[in-house]
């Protein structure tokens, strides 16, 4: 005898609760049924329990296994260089490998950085986008290499006065080759890498690739003619939208909603992928820093950059 049956017969009464839960049994019991008759009926109770309650419990438990979708946020509030780019790539891979991360928002406030690191992140973003949408939210600035990343996303939000654009390349030309008495090299450009002339032409070639990325990324949304695109200008967010460099004026939360919409999810959780991916902080100064702690807008190392260098020193 089950606990319920024992309870009913022992007390010889049916309370309101039992009446509600087991109406058929209660009615029959009230008519003076015997214990043997009740056994048959109890079978049906057990059958209901087996076929309804248990699956329901299992279903509820299974429902708990359906994850809440996550919109991952990758923040770039620095220049793009080896460390920052590696961090971004780690976050992109995390988003790619974790199914609960249904879309990514790229929150940008960056003047760009080195060419190769920008390209690395751009290409990883392209891989991610084959599976999950990526939306850009431009906060303070998305200039040069940072804008290269922007055009590698599905939708671009900007603030009305964000700084957007600066499409192009900056290169520090190597010196005219010369030789040292104390340094032996095995070729005329072993010390310098390339001629000044070829460096100049390489920069222009990279600019062409940048232009191609902009045209492919923005497609028909791009309204500015080519000569405007490659002028290297920085536009305010408002202008950027009217010229087709960005899609809409909006905030980071707008970008999250848009990412969710593109991913087909709702009631999502926004999460910083830096935390999820377990990235540890690092210390590295990409820009020149004076002994007094003044950060200059010039990179520590000469090279080729997709970088916006403002005219005045930046003080921190």
């Amino acid at each position, binding site marked *: 005898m089950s606990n319920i049956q024992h309870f009913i017969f022992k007390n010889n009464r049916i309370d309101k609760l039992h009446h509600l839960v087991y109406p058929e049994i209660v009615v029959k019991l009230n008519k003076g049924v015997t214990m043997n008759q009740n056994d048959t009926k109890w079978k049906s109770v057990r059958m209901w329990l087996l076929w309804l309650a248990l*699956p329901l419990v299992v279903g509820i438990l299974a*429902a708990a*296994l359906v994850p809440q979708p996550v919109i991952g946020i990758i923040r770039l509030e620095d220049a793009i260089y080896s460390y920052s780019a590696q961090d971004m790539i780690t976050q992109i891979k995390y988003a790619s490998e974790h199914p609960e991360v249904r879309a990514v928002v790229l929150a940008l406030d960056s003047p760009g950085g080195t060419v190769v690191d920008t390209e690395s992140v751009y290409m990883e973003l392209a891989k991610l*986008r084959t*599976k999950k949408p990526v939306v850009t939210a431009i906060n303070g600035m998305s200039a040069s290499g940072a804008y290269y990343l922007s055009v590698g996303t599905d939708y671009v939000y900007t603030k009305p006065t964000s700084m957007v654009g600066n499409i192009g390349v900056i290169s520090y030309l190597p010196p005219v080759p010369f030789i040292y008495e104390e340094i032996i090299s095995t070729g005329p450009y072993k010390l310098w890498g390339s001629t000044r002339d070829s460096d100049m*032409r390489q920069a222009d070639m990279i600019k*062409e690739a940048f232009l191609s990325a902009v045209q492919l990324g923005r497609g028909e949304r791009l309204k500015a003619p080519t*000569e405007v695109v*490659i002028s290297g200008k920085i536009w305010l967010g408002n202008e950027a939208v009217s010229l087709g460099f960005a899609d809409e004026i909006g905030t980071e939360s707008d970008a999250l909603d848009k990412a969710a919409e593109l991913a087909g999810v709702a*009631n999502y959780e926004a999460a910083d992928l830096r935390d999820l991916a377990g990235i540890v902080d690092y210390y590295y100064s990409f820009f020149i820093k004076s002994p007094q702690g003044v950060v200059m807008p010039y990179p520590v190392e000469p090279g080729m950059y997709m970088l916006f260098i403002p005219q005045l020193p930046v003080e921190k």
Partner: protein
Amino acid sequence: MKKNLIWIALAALIIPPLARGLWFYRGIPTQREIATPDYPSFAISQPPLTTPEANEKIKITGGTVLFDAGHANLYQTSEVQALQEEISKRGGRVETVADPALLEFKLKYASAYVVVSPSMPFTDAELRIVQDFVKRGGRLLVFTDATRGVLYYDWFTGMETNYADSVIANSLLSPFGITVNNDYLYNVEEHEGNYRNVYFDDFGKSELTFGIKRVALYGAHSIKSASGLTLLRGAESTLSSVDDAHDPAEGGAAISEDGNVLAFGDFTFLTSPYQNVADNATLISNIADFTLGGKQTVTLANFPYLFAQSMVQVYPTSEIKLSAETVAAISGIQQALRTVNIDVEVVSKAPRGGDALVLGTFAPSDDLAEFTDPFNIALGENEETLIIKNFGEIGRAGNGLLLFEQSKNGNTLTLLADTQEDLLSLIATVGSGSLSGCVLQDNLAVCGVGYGGDYSSTEATATEEPTSDGTTPEAEATPEPAATPAG
């Protein structure tokens, strides 16, 4: 019955996760193709190089081209080497001038004065010297470059200011109607490897643009000339950085109305490897021709650079005795002329051709007449003065005359004085290489050469010399001593 139960069980099992799924997920993600740039398809642009013709006909003209090195010029000699080599191929000689004091002297014999990217201003005196040089027919070339300038950093405000070479270049060029703009030309549509490397396909008609179809300049200021000619004109897509606009009146180079002043907004095209891009090599050759094509109108102001040939014939007329003093004086002239690579040959007959130095006195003579007649010189009524047309009357005693005549056959300088002693003094003046003690008027100079004749008698005569109205002048009163003003 059992079938119903199965449905119920399935529903109970599925509905919770389904409801949760629908709560979160409204669509199914799809795999997409993402287009990225076709990186391997991008290649480095190659410049359109040309090989100079081996059998290029070069006219040997000779001459001296003076490069300015006295105004903190922002270039290295290697950067103008290609132009200097072309000048040398034409028999030209390249000199530099760093000392402003030597500028006037060197411009007397130079065919062209080349100023490259100056960053220190020219003084008013230097500007006058250069303008006089151009007026005489010398040629002025000014190369500026938009990539050169002095960067000034203000440590108080953090402001950086770039002082371009165009400002100083304009002080040289503006008197000739040429202006260098403080900008750079660019073309984002069609360029030579970079937007600031601009092609020019449209040319002003000039000897400088002869044989040129296309040239490329590398970071050039725009140049305009109101009265002259814009030589290199860019396409409509060539814009100025000042206003991002195209001005057909502005270009990469311009020449003045008289054709003697040439300005370029760039000199990087003179350097390797850009000297061989498009028709730049031809342009450089044309510029070399231009530098040596300047022919100054030689006047006595060019002294001592009055002679064009390597030999000067010294002709003492019949009144001149070749005494030891005279020979010594002539040797002084010989030494002076050797410093400018001219030899001297004493001849006994009047030269019929070539450069000549004629020595004579004021006394009329047949063998001197052909040299003095063009200057309309006549003796005064009392024969103690000389009347020179357009100059006036001068005393014979103590004065020497320099007469310079330029002709196709050669240049002739005639030295005349009242006596042979005065003539020796005049020769010494000429031998010193300077006419600073002379009054110059075109091709005639009057030089004080002493007192003339016997020194003691001249001195005595001078004190008793009558005035023009025939009275004896009173002795000049000695001023009374006066008290020094107080305070």
